[in-house]
C-alpha cells in the first residue's frame, strides 16, 4: 500500500526530524560502549575506528543523510573525548584527528547517498508493482464486464435472428419463450448498466446520501411490493417494531440496499424457501436483517462477496455488483454490512444505519 502522506524520501532527506537525529546518536552511543569494551581488552588498536562506519551506515539507511552526518560528528567527537589521550578533552587540533573526522564525514555522506539511491530504486519498483497490479485488476474487471454485457447480447441476438429467420417453424410456446428470453435479457442488461453506473459513482465518492427522516416500515413494504414478481411464492416474515427511533437516511439508497439484498436472496436460494426481514434498534444504530434459508455462505466467502464482480457458488445469475453497491451505500451512511450464518442453514445479511443525533440533513 502506498503511504498516504509524504513519500519516504521526503522524510529521509533534508534536515531530518529530531527523532531521526536522536536515533543516530543512540546508535553512536552503543558503538562507543562497544569500542570502550574492546579498547580495554586490546588497547591501542588503530583499526577500531572502523567500527564507527556501523552506526553511520545504520543511520544513513534507516534515518536519512542528516542523521548520518550527526552520527559521523558524534562518533568523531565521542571517540576523541573518550578514547584519545588526554581523555575528556577535545584534541581535534592534531592533524590526525582532524583527518579522521573528515574521513568519517565523507563516509557518512557517501553511504547516505548510496542508501538514498537504493531507497529510491526500491520505491520506484514498488510503485511500478502497484501500478501493474491495479492495471491487472482493471483488465480483469473489464473482461468480466464485457463478458457480462456480451452474454445477454448474444442470447438476444440468437433469439431475434431465430424469430426473424424465414422458414423456421416455431410453435406458439417457442415464440413466447424466445420473446420472454429477449425481454429478460434486455432487463438484465439494463440492470447491469445501472449497477455499473452506481458502482462507478460510488468509486468516485459521488454518492453522498441525502439524509431525511423516512418511515423504514413503509420503505420495506414498497420494496416488497415491487419485488413480488421476483420473490414468487416465498413465505415472507417481516418484523418491524411499532416504534422505531427516527433515523434520517437517503431513501433511494436504502431502497437499493434492501432491494439488492432481497434480489440476492431470490437469485441464490431455492424458489419457495422462506425469507425473513427484521428491523430493530441496537444501541445507537438501527439494525436491518435479511435472512434466507438457502445454502448459506462459507465463512471464507463472507467478505469476498461484497467486492465487485465476486459471485457466490450457487450458480445464480446476479450482476455481481448488487452486494458491492449495497455495501457502498451502507458505508456512505456510516453503517456496516456483513453476513452471518443461520443456525439451521442459510445466510443472514445484516446492515446498520447509525442514528445521527446531530442533525445534518435531519431537517427537511
Amino acid at each position, binding site marked *: 500500500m502506498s503511504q498516504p502522506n509524504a513519500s519516504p524520501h521526503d522524510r529521509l532527506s533534508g534536515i531530518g526530524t529530531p527523532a531521526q537525529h536522536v536515533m543516530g546518536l543512540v546508535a553512536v552511543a552503543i558503538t562507543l560502549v562497544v569500542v570502550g569494551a574492546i579498547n580495554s581488552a586490546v588497547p591501542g588498536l588503530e583499526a577500531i575506528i572502523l567500527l564507527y562506519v556501523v552506526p553511520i551506515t545504520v543511520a544513513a539507511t534507516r534515518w536519512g543523510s542528516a542523521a548520518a552526518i550527526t552520527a559521523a560528528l558524534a562518533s568523531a567527537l565521542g571517540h576523541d573525548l573518550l578514547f584519545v589521550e588526554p581523555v575528556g578533552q577535545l584534541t581535534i587540533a592534531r592533524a590526525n584527528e582532524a583527518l579522521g573526522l573528515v574521513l568519517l564525514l565523507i563516509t557518512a555522506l557517501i553511504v547516505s547517498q548510496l542508501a538514498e539511491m537504493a531507497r529510491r530504486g526500491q520505491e520506484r519498483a514498488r510503485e511500478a508493482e502497484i501500478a501493474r497490479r491495479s492495471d491487472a485488476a482493471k483488465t480483469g474487471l473489464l473482461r468480466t464486464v464485457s463478458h457480462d454485457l456480451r452474454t445477454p447480447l*448474444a*442470447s438476444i441476438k440468437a433469439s431475434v435472428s431465430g424469430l426473424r429467420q424465414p422458414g423456421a417453424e416455431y410453435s406458439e410456446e*417457442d415464440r413466447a*419463450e424466445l420473446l420472454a428470453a429477449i425481454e429478460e435479457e434486455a432487463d438484465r442488461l439494463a440492470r447491469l448498466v445501472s449497477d455499473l453506473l452506481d458502482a462507478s459513482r460510488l468509486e468516485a465518492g459521488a454518492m453522498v446520501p441525502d439524509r431525511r427522516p423516512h418511515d423504514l416500515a413503509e420503505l420495506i413494504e414498497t420494496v416488497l411490493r415491487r419485488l413480488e414478481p421476483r420473490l414468487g411464492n416465498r413465505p415472507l416474515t417481516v418484523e418491524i417494531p411499532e416504534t422505531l427511533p427516527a433515523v434520517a437516511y437517503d431513501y433511494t439508497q436504502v431502497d437499493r440496499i434492501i432491494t439488492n439484498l432481497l434480489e440476492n436472496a431470490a437469485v441464490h436460494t431455492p424458489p419457495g424457501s422462506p425469507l425473513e426481514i427484521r428491523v430493530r434498534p441496537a444501541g445507537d444504530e438501527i439494525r436491518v436483517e435479511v435472512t434466507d434459508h438457502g445454502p448459506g455462505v462459507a465463512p471464507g466467502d463472507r467478505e469476498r462477496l461484497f467486492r465487485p464482480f465476486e459471485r457466490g457458488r450457487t450458480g445464480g445469475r446476479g450482476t455481481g455488483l448488487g452486494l458491492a453497491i449495497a455495501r457502498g451505500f451502507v458505508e456512505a451512511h456510516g453503517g456496516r454490512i456483513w453476513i452471518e450464518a443461520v443456525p439451521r442453514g442459510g445466510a443472514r445479511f445484516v446492515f446498520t444505519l447509525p442514528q445521527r443525533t446531530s442533525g445534518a440533513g435531519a431537517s427537511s
Partner: protein
Amino acid sequence: MSRPRILVVDDEPQIRRALRVALRANGYDVDEAETGGEAIDAVALDRPDLVILDLALPDLDGVEVCRRLREWTQLPIIVLSAHGDDQAKVRALDEGADDFVTKPFSVPELLARMRVAIRHASRVNPEGDQVVWAGEVKIDLSRRVVTRAGAEVHLTPTEYGLLRYLAQHADRVITRGQLLRAVMGPGYADATGNLRVYIVGLRKKLEANPSRPRLLVTEPGVGYRLRTE
C-alpha cells in the same frame, strides 16, 4: 430420415435456451451440456450428429474438449467463441474443430455452418467431391485442372496445393497453420508471411476483383475459407 441430433455445450443457460428453441424449430433435436465433462459424456452416450461447443466453459477449456473428442470421434464440432478470443479459436480449429461462429451470432449464420459441417461429415468418400465449383471457378481434383469461366487457369504447384486443400474442405475455415502443414509440410507451419503471398497470387488468378475476394475469403485472425455456396 430422423432429425439430426445436436449437442449444445454452453454454461450460460440463456444461450442454451435460445439455441434449443431455434434449432428445434429448424428440424433438429437438441441435447444440452453445461460443462466440458458433461459434453464428453453426452457425446459418448447420445452420439449426436454435431456438437456446438462454447470455448469458455467452467471446468475444461473448450480447446481441451475438442482435443479429447478428436481422440476417438470425427463428429463435426462448431465452436462458439467470444470476440477477441482469436487464439483460443485457432487452437480449437487446430485441435480438430470444424468451424466457428463468434458471439453474438445469428441463427441463420450458425445453421449455414452446421449444414456445411454435417454435409462434410456424412460424405462416403473422405476425399470429397471430384469436382468443386466456386462461383465460375471449377476445380477438377481428379484431373488437376482449374478453369475460370471455361478458360484454364495456370497455377504454380504450391498454389494448386493450397487451392486443392481448400476445395477439399470447401466452405469450412482452415487455419493458416493447417494450410501450411498440409501443403508445405510440418516444418513450414509458421511461414504465414509466405502464405499471404500465395493467397494473393491465387486471388489474382481466380477472383473477379482480387482486392475484394468473394471466393477465397480471409477469416481475420484465423485463416481462409473457400466459398462455394
